């Protein structure tokens, strides 16, 4: 399967390139979420003393937020950065954002291994329901991929998209109940949160990871719907825009 080999080769390149010339290499991938966690503990844990196992609660959100935001940030740049390859080898343009997803899946797998060990001391319960992580992660990857290709396609023509993403990323982060709990939001503003698709996925991840329960089926189906819809729309737009990529990169 040449496609799998190509995807593997590009993902491997991403992993090598990301921490090239850095002293501690892939450890940076752990340090970033860890610093956020420390900030949350310092600022919020007194505030949320009522939240059971706050560290576990916050970490289960942070990990998947960074998974999403890294895919989008790197996916946006992936096509314009590959201009040399795209101009000389016949390859589907979707391969490049896809390789960012597999790269992040690899990083997440490393992070989850550490997480599963460390979270033992923060009240994590290991149950069969953890299996649910796999399908949930799959639909979340599809969603992240969709957002990435949509923005990547526009970013080829208008580099504002990359800048826009960096600008709105913190806003979306704080609009997602990652460091705080949902009930903190006043009733009249709860619709704002509900407009944010990431919110549903983070909530879904917390069923197996935080509550040690099977996910709410209705929510699971909703998330699958969001992913499928996002993928269809993004692919449609991507295919309309990709014919002129080569003139713009």
């Amino acid at each position: 399967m040449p496609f799998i080999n190509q995807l593997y080769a590009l993902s491997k390149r991403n992993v090598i390139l990301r921490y090239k010339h850095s002293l501690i290499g892939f450890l940076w991938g752990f340090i970033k979420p860890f610093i956020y966690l420390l900030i949350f503990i310092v600022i919020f844990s007194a505030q949320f003393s009522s939240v059971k196992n706050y560290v576990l609660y916050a970490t289960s959100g942070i990990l998947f937020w960074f998974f999403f935001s890294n895919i989008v940030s790197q996916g946006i740049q992936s096509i314009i950065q590959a201009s040399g390859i795209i101009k000389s080898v016949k390859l589907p343009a979707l391969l490049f954002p896809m390789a960012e997803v597999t790269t992040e899946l690899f990083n997440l797998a490393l992070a989850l291994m550490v997480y599963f060990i460390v979270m033992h001391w923060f009240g994590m319960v290991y149950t069969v329901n953890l299996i649910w992580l796999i399908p949930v992660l799959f639909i979340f990857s599809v969603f992240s991929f969709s957002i990435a290709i949509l923005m990547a396609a526009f970013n080829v023509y208008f580099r504002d998209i990359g800048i826009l993403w960096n600008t709105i990323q913190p806003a979306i982060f704080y609009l997602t109940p990652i460091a705080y709990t949902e009930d903190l939001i006043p009733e009249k503003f709860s619709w704002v949160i509900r407009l944010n698709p990431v919110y549903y996925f983070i909530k879904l991840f917390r069923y197996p990871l935080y509550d040690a329960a099977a996910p709410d089926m209705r929510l699971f189906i909703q998330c699958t719907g969001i992913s499928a819809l996002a993928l269809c729309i993004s692919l449609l737009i991507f295919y309309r825009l990709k014919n002129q990529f080569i003139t713009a990169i």
Partner: protein
Amino acid sequence: MSVLLDLQHVSVRYRSNPAGIFSVKDLLTTMAHPFQTKEILNDISFTLQQGESLGIVGRNGSGKSTLLRTIAGIIKPSKGQLTTNGSIAPILALGAGLEQELTGYENIRLLLSLYGRKINASSVEKIAAFSELDDTTLRQAVKCYSSGMLARLTFSISFSQHCDIFIIDEVLAVGDMGFQAKCMQKISDLKKDGRSVIFVSHFPDEVEKICENAILLEQGKLIYQGSSSAVCQEYKNLF
């Protein structure tokens, strides 16, 4: 003798930005329409036989590279028909597709997988041997390479492919004499083997040496077609 490549009235259009409008400020101050459709290739027709080698000559910006990309399937023609019967090796341009930060070895492996080839120790070994770059060099990041070394690496990677058509976009010029001779030898071996070569160069002598036939491009149009010596004469007359 079978026809490997057949172009019938191929045109390629780009949306270009002739007024140089890259921001809202530019748009407001020039008040021009930002995009115009520009014809890069206009009604190109030619065929390539098995074992034939075809030279492409023309001024800078006459559409040579666009033509090569169209042949390789990277750009879709907006008009006309392009038929290929056979596999096409990736375009050989200086440093094309190489990742600057990766080492020579890493680049060999990356490009081979992107071309859809199997990688094993012997294929990498063969490429390294053909390039005549030593082990220390190949362990260095490609960004430290001289242009001659880049040419050696790209040439070696592309020539390791088993393809019917090889596309060579001016890389010979930067290699040293020894390597140029080696590449010429390789090209004539390929031709004896029944493979076809499309060769772009600004050196008419090279084109005459390598190719039997050639085409001359001028502003995206094919203005002259024939034996390479006639086309090269025509090309020299342009200046």
